[in-house]
């Protein structure tokens, strides 16, 4: 019997998916469990398995096309079977959902599968634009970047396909802006419309919702990082690891959050949930947006383990290989723009979480110690809190503890 293959819901926030690639052709046999199609959701690229065995009779949504979740994307059946009823019932379902949009959640409100005529991610990209999430860099550029402790991801590439080359590293080192800031071909005096990728749409929707519904307030504190710098050096001198400040900040947040469950909370309308575990989302910049892979149970993990897990998560986040449970369910989020030299900034809360920490750069500055002006290293962090569940004093006490942890990092090592 012919069965419909429908656009699956691959994340909590997904409303539609883009067909990246059909791995089976029309007329080809499929066995239950075969991967038949790759789909781009708002968060990641995922593979869809066939739930039935038979012949792939009809591809309804071609590569590059997008379709709302639950809509028909293909039909599997016997080679000579009449599939018109499956095709018809699918279009009926879509008509229904169109006719009664009020009764259906907005997810299904879109009409029949739309086929985008604009190039989707499978279409060849114009020359000079990166075709995938990979950062392209010449071997020399990579070596120079690592020698000068630059993150190659933050350097715009001026070579073919956005390749980062020697002159880009030199420009970054000199602090000068490259003559041609991007590899895109830009005609001055014109404008262009860029269609939003699924991930961009999700960010647009969720950030607007957050800022409109959650009353944000912001509290900033400055921490003396001399001890944290020494602590990190000690760890890296002894262990075969490259512990980052982010790793240390994550651990410090986890410790402080366990002491302040009001900050480690989610807003649920008529109640709030205070968590006695710490799942920290870490914002990772992508080509066309960002994603926040989650380090679970940070309260139980040492800095070394946090380092390893974060490295793996960030890697896979950049390659869009995260599974939904790896970016859903954080209790708190950290966004770090320190690598760009940003002193401080404020972040938008990622709902339903109650707070987000915006981390600035560690800067060399004159500070007053024991009545003397000396050279110090300070870092400013700003907590954005949802005032519906967190008050100013709670936020301040949390930051006070966080500062104490960062200034006395030995406290981050388990002593029990």
């Amino acid at each position, binding site marked *: 019997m012919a069965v419909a293959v429908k656009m699956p819901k691959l994340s909590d926030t997904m409303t539609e998916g883009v067909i990246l690639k059909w791995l089976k052709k029309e007329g080809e046999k499929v066995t239950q469990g075969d991967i038949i199609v790759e789909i781009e959701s708002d968060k990641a690229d995922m593979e869809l398995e066939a739930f039935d065995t038979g012949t792939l009779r009809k591809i309804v949504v071609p590569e590059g096309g997008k379709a709302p979740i639950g809509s028909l994307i293909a039909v599997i059946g016997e080679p000579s079977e009449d599939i018109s009823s499956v095709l018809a019932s699918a279009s009926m379902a879509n008509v229904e959902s169109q006719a009664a949009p009020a009764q259906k959640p907005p997810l299904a409100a879109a009409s029949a599968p739309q086929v985008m005529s604009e190039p989707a991610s499978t279409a060849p990209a114009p020359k000079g634009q990166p075709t995938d999430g990979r950062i392209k860099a010449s071997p020399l550029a990579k070596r120079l970047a690592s020698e000068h402790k630059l993150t190659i991801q933050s350097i715009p590439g001026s070579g073919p396909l956005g390749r980062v080359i*020697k002159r880009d590293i030199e420009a970054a080192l000199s602090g000068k802006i490259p003559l041609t800031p991007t590899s895109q071909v830009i005609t001055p005096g014109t404008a262009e419309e860029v269609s939003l990728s699924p991930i961009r749409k999700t960010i647009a929707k969720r950030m607007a919702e957050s800022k409109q519904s959650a009353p944000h307030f912001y509290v900033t504190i400055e921490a003396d990082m001399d001890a944290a710098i020494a602590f990190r050096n000690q760890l890296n001198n002894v262990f075969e690891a490259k512990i980052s400040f982010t790793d240390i900040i994550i651990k410090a947040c986890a410790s402080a959050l366990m002491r302040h469950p009001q900050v480690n909370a989610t807003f649920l309308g008529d109640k709030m949930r205070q968590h006695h575990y710490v799942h920290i989302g870490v914002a990772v910049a992508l080509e066309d947006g960002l994603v926040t892979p989650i380090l679970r149970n940070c309260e139980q993990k040492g800095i070394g383990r946090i380092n390893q897990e974060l490295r793996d998560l960030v890697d896979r986040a950049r390659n869009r290989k995260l599974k939904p449970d790896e970016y859903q369910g954080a209790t708190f989020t950290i966004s770090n723009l320190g690598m760009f030299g940003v002193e401080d900034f404020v972040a938008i809360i990622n709902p339903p979480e109650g707070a987000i920490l915006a981390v600035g750069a560690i800067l060399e500055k004159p500070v007053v110690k024991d009545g003397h002006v000396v050279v110090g290293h300070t870092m400013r962090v700003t907590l954005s809190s949802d005032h519906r569940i967190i008050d100013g004093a709670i936020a301040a006490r949390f930051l006070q503890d966080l500062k104490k942890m960062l200034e006395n990092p030995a406290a981050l090592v388990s002593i029990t």
Partner: protein
Amino acid sequence: MPPVNLREALRQAIDEEMARDDRVFLMGEEVAHYQGAYKVSQGLLQKYGERRIIDTPIAEAGFAGIGIGAAMVGLRPIVEFMTWNFSLVAFDQIVNNAAKMHSMSGGHFHVPIVFRGPGGAAHNLAATHSQALESIYAHVPGLKVVMPSTCEDAKGLLKTSIRDENPVIFIESEVMYGDKGEIPEGEYTIPLGVGKKVREGKDITIVSWAKVLAHVTTKAVAELVQEGIDVELIDPRTIKPMDYDLIVDSVKKTNRLVIVEEGWPFAGVGAQISHEVTNRAFDYLDSPVERVTQEDVPLPYAHNLEAASLPSIEKIIRASKKVLYAD
């Protein structure tokens, strides 16, 4: 000392080595009474007589084999091919006997022989008479391949090749025999496997050799330098053994490499150099290695198509700007 042309430089090398060692003799088509198809052996018959300057029939497999046999029993033959295209008739002798005899006899026989003659394209000689075969001979273990680009190098390298205990493929060029150049006074030799930095530079390394270096690459380099691109130009002089150290060190400085050769692209000498550089200087490369080669076709007879198929100044400049991201 006044400049000499290439044929004179080569003749001096043969003459000096024949005078120095009476086991050395020259054999080939038209080398004696006609004084050499390209006059390299002019006057040598008169000086050394028919026992040591030997005209052969048009039978490359035969006289290459005779030369190899003579070398195995203690003589030091120089076998001239009228062009390297004709060596293909003797390919079995060179590859299976000359190259392998030392190894397969367990070291009992050396084959101290030089096969020499012009290779590569001249003008309008068409597909079968224009071949740059250096990569094919360099492919074979047991053969050394030498390709000079100047008169000085030609003389010094040929003398060393004649003294070498193993077979040497010595490739000259018809269109270079008249090229003039200074050569040092008195006796000198140049070791095999040692390349030469023709020009010091810091922006890009260009590796090229023999005729294409002398007649094409140097002109392209002059234009690039004119445009402000500081080229480092390297002449390996010996294709096998290749002076990789010289090239790798240069690429570590310039971060960019273009290899210009007259042969075809597939499995060419440049492909081998590119591999070695990618391995040994990977973290120093700022752009993929570029090659300029002959197009992958039998060389056309028509003048315009012949020119379009061979490496040109334009092609070298284009490749150089590509590795500099200046295109």
